[in-house]
């Protein structure tokens, strides 16, 4: 029983990270109307940036601050130099572009950081665990839960309560309106991509001390981000959280009894949900 409760907590922590990934992807895909197959690679780069920054500066917190910003800048560059030229090109070429980018980033990771997995310790203050009564639980995971929750809330506040957020939501729902309001749509696209990349980057950075790093981590996460968006709906914040928690918890619970199936179960859960609700959890489009 306690094992199960512990696993559910684990599931909530990873589920929140999945929600972050889905949210970032949702911003990019929704606002720019492109399939972003590089989203997983951005996640992986976030994790590797963290390791390098921590290695250079010896401070986890600085790493957590700087690494995602680096990823956001990378996103900015990708949008500005590449994606921007493809808005009229059709999803097939857009996909090929982002997929090619994913291949390149993935291989660059191997070239720069090596093909072998790296493990990374949480900062000293977050090592060890706390007694929650029913289980002894790692501090770092509690931190991740709080941090991811904070980021989700911040994103929600940004989207719902600020002018820029309102523009961004309008960009998802009705692009014509954005142009009618006299807002430079290119600017909106660039910011949305950078923001989505930031969320992917920070999710990657937060994941590093939990799961360690490996070049394949990006692709695995890409599929998961797709699941979150397919179930939660584009631009649907609550949907992303619900979908993220659903698959995070399902994965953690299954992992306790049948480790081998713990990744496949994410996609199996998605298939099962879609069988019953083809339009996703909240029935959007």
């Amino acid at each position, binding site marked *: 029983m306690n094992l199960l409760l512990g696993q559910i907590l684990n599931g909530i922590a990873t589920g929140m990270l999945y929600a972050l990934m889905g949210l970032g992807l949702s911003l990019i895909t929704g606002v720019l109307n492109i399939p972003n197959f590089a989203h997983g690679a951005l996640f992986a780069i976030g994790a590797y940036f963290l390791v390098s920054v921590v290695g250079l500066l010896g401070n986890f917190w600085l790493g957590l601050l700087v690494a995602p910003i680096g990823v956001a800048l990378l996103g900015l560059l990708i949008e500005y130099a*590449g994606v921007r030229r*493809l808005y009229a090109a059709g999803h*097939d070429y857009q996909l090929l*572009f982002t997929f*090619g980018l994913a291949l390149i980033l993935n291989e660059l990771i191997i*070239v720069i950081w090596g093909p072998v997995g790296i493990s990374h310790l949480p900062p000293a203050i977050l090592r060890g665990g706390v007694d929650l009564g029913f289980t002894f639980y790692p501090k770092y995971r509690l931190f991740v839960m709080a941090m991811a929750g904070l980021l989700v809330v911040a994103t929600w506040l940004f989207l719902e309560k600020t002018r820029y957020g309102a523009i961004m939501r309008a960009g998802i729902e009705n692009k014509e309106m954005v142009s009618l309001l006299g807002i430079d749509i290119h600017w909106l696209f660039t910011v949305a991509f950078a923001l989505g990349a930031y969320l992917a980057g920070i999710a990657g950075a937060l994941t590093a001390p939990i799961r360690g790093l490996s070049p394949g981590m990006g692709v695995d996460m890409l*599929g998961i981000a797709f699941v979150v*968006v397919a179930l939660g709906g584009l631009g649907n914040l609550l949907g992303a959280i619900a979908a993220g928690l659903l698959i995070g918890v399902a994965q953690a619970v299954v992992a306790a009894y049948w480790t081998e199936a713990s990744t*496949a179960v994410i996609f199996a859960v998605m*298939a099962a949900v879609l069988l019953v609700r083809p339009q996703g959890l909240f029935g959007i489009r």
Partner: protein
Amino acid sequence: MRALVLILAAVVLLPFIVRPAIASEIWIFAIFGLGLNLLLGYTGLLSFGQSTFFGSAAYVAGYLLKHYAIGVFAALGIGVAVGAISALLVGYLCVQRSGLYFIMLTFALNQLFYFIAYQWTTVTGGEDGMPGVPRPAMLGIDFRDPVAYYIFVSVLFLLSLWLMKRIVDSPLGKILQGIRENEVRAEAVGYHVPRFKLLAFVIGGAFSGLAGVLYAMLFGIVPLEAIGFVTSGNVVFATLIGGSGSLYGPIIGSFVFIWLSESMSVVWARWPLLLGVAFIVVVLFFRGGVVEAWDRIWRFSKRTT
């Protein structure tokens, strides 16, 4: 007619130019591309999960070939069936959504099959792949001889091409193109669009399955990548560079792609990086596919000389 002559000439000449194994791979990949293009070019459905059907067929038929010594034709039949059935399952979930959701779903379900293959090591060998897939002799022909196998593959390729031509020239071909052109109108004149999309999926899956079995027998192994996303991406890439607008596009694309990846893989172990660069260069500069690229290079060389 001219296309047919060209293809026949290519079939005959190819093994004299490249190793028979590579030549076989080109036609196998072309069959795979033909299946995808029914979805991508004709129906307008960008499936990024075709390796699901390719890989599933390769694993199932490969396993039966290895452990139950089934015949070559049985293996082909089983591969086609597995390809079609897996496409039916995946397609059923995907055709209910459209646009970007559709693309993401094909990929996510591809991942489902990938992770099953990855973890089910007792059957698939996991990351090491499933080696030891035989090429049993049939009617006294020893398919272990690369040239004999090449001829076998070529005949199946020509058969596939003929079959696909029949399909795209049939009412079904028209209906699928109608769906690509205008889904709402296709529905309004009386076609159940999701059902037809599903049919396209199943046919495309059958072709992918055939390609998968031939691939497993060609290399004697089913590598894990056979069911991975890179394979799905490669067939999309090949079809697009060949031109998804015509029946023959995937064949040209298969040539270019296999040649490209073969030559890059001898250059550098990290050749997927070069492949990624190639994707981006094509997308940014040669979006019309090889036909347009050829045209541009031609004009450029005329200007410089």
